[in-house]
């Protein structure tokens, strides 16, 4: 959510359109059952992630660490315990077969591509612009859009508050006791002040918005006009051609002999 260091064409794509296409891609990714398609598709998405998010490479690799964790944990459970006929390795309940190996790797890639698409969207879209676009292109009701924007503003404030409350309770001696019971008590003591403060703040913001003549029913003008541009066309063609390319590569240069990983 940080402001990117440099903006690329992907930042200029209409946010509502970007969201819509990504939503379709999520569904599409679930319907891919060929590892030979999945791998090139993941590669084309990671090109967007590496070249178009505008973040320094150090940050991008840091973000990748948990993603690889997701990759391995998802694929390992399938590889080790999945069903299959051609046994590669067997030890106790661990049973690695060729089918489960392919299927596990496929699932890992699926998780990875989900994560990459999601984070690429977040890194190239400003929340404010997204909500303006949703209001203008998808006719989202202003009352929802502005409530969400106000809520996003509250997140860092809540985080600061969370640290302060923890310190304040530490001073009261909440953290000096040992044992599971006092740990539970510690967890229990946090949400009440945090929530009471947040509810109060949310209520105040709502009143302040109405005091500024916010009215969900009437027409309004917009400070940001979010429209369409050639970048949208570029984005759509990139996605369409990357899907086409993936299928073409899968049929012409298959990496693995299997076509369908389903058992």
């Amino acid at each position, binding site marked *: 959510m940080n402001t990117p260091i440099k903006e690329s064409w992907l930042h200029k794509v209409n946010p509502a359109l970007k969201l819509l296409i990504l939503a379709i891609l999520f569904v599409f990714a679930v319907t891919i059952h060929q590892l030979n398609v999945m791998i090139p598709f993941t590669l084309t998405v990671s090109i967007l992630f590496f070249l178009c998010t505008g973040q320094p490479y150090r940050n991008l690799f840091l973000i990748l660490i948990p993603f690889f964790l997701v990759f391995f944990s998802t694929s390992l459970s399938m590889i080790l315990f999945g069903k299959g006929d051609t046994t590669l390795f067997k030890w106790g309940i661990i049973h690695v077969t060729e089918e489960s190996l392919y299927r596990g790797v496929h699932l890992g890639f699926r998780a990875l591509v989900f994560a990459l698409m999601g984070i690429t969207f977040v890194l190239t879209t400003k929340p*404010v612009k997204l909500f303006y676009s949703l209001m203008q292109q998808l006719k989202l009701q202003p009352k929802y859009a*502005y409530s969400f*924007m*106000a809520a*996003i*503003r509250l997140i*860092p*404030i809540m985080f600061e508050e969370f640290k*302060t*409350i923890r*310190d*304040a*309770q*530490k*001073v*009261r*001696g*909440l953290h*000096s006791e040992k044992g599971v019971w006092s740990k539970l008590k510690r967890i229990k*003591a946090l949400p009440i*002040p945090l929530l*009471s*403060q947040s509810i*109060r*703040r949310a209520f*105040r*913001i*709502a*009143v*302040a*918005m*109405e*005091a*500024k*003549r*916010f*009215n969900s029913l*009437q*027409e*309004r*003008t*917009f*400070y940001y*006009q979010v429209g369409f541009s050639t970048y949208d066309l570029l984005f759509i063609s990139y996605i369409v051609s990357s899907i086409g390319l993936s299928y073409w590569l899968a049929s012409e240069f298959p990496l693995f002999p299997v076509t369908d990983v389903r058992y």
Partner: protein
Amino acid sequence: MEYITSIKNLNLKFPKEEGLLFNDLSISIRKGEKVLLLGPSGCGKSTLLQVLTGLIPRSMDVPLKSESIQIPDSWGFVFQDPDSQFCMPYVDEEIAFVLENLRIPREEMTDRIKKLLTTVGLQLDNIHNKIQALSGGMKQRLALASVLALDPEVIFLDEPTALIDDDGTAQVWDTVKSIADDKTLIIVEHKIDQIIDIIDRIIVFTDDGTIMADGEPAYVFSHFKAEIKRFGIWYPNAWGEYIKEKANITYNNYSDTVLNLDNFRGYRGKVPAITLEKATVQSGEWIAVTGANGAGKSTLILSLMQLLRTTGEYKIEGRPIRSFSDLEKKTYFVFQNPEYQFLTNRVIDELTYDIRQRVSPDVMKQANDLLSLFGLKDKQNQHPYHLSLGQKRRLSVATAFLQDPKILLLDEPTFGQDSKNTFKLLELLQEESRKGTIIIMVTHDLNIIHHFATRVWEVKGGKVICDWKKDEIKREEGRMYEYTY
């Protein structure tokens, strides 16, 4: 006579509370008047502003009945908390939000935003500036700018400076003065010194929500002085009279050194955020930590409480302190928001919380005495969250006293308190300091520095740059005014 806003026979009651907040209240305000509403906390001043603007009952569901309510044709409202009146992350977007609501064409917005920001004296290199990066005073001026975007006849201000420091307060009131000419102002405020000169009508409420006095400032303050004082409302020269009454604020002199600091540093992340070269502190000293906003005052006391990473020598009674557990309850910290420190469901339990394993009759008696001392005896079975702000603050200080700490650290404990609560709290702290407790307190209030503190630490740019004893405070006073105001 032309009234711009008025109420006739208002009756209002908050659900679940006993009795009416207002009983047949009538009030009318003329165009162009600059009105100040005064009254003890909880008397309904803020509620009245919300009724006059129609926010009650339109935005807030509170049952009310009245013969007539005349809401001004155009009005704007500046709220107390700078952090909870904006809904957008950037300065320009926030003002644009108001312009959008008014259906101003997009092409005109940028010019209008720039003009409004200039009017309130917010000079920003780039109007697309994060609101979070502004100081409290700047945030409240932004709030004023977005109110001015509505081009209101009447501006309502509900304690706009209660949560910001003196610098910010001065900025806000200067801005209000510069735009007030042709506007009607209706203000609720505790700290009145800086606005009293533009006010031409004061309305004083009693604690049961009836109007006690209504008139020009000079008339009100001369005829109703005793009542105003009794209700704990700040009035010009409240401090001067208090000091005259309590002619002798005395201290015991102790000679035992409790606190040793040498090359003491507190860190936020990897950078040292506060440095204190060298200091020794004796029992019973009262140190006021002062300096501009963001200089590192709170960082200093957080470091002393070991809530931040520290380096250098730090000893209490000769024992080195390197982590929070080394403190062994010898120090106690009172946070600015008292709610953060409440852990139980009853006022009395708050006091005995730490020693609950062995609540002897002795401790119980001590706790009860403290409650009487702090004026909380009749509230002992209430939930701490149900107390008023002043009571919450007193309770959070009271929890410190039962622990009997050697060093008591406080972060602006008198912030936004009425005069009665302020003096009471200071007297209780003084009592504690006479017993030998060291008090280290962040404060902007020159009156406290002058009359209660025995020593001043001035913080500037992350360093404690001055360390004055009592007799030097007076001498340096002229210079100190320079930075506090």
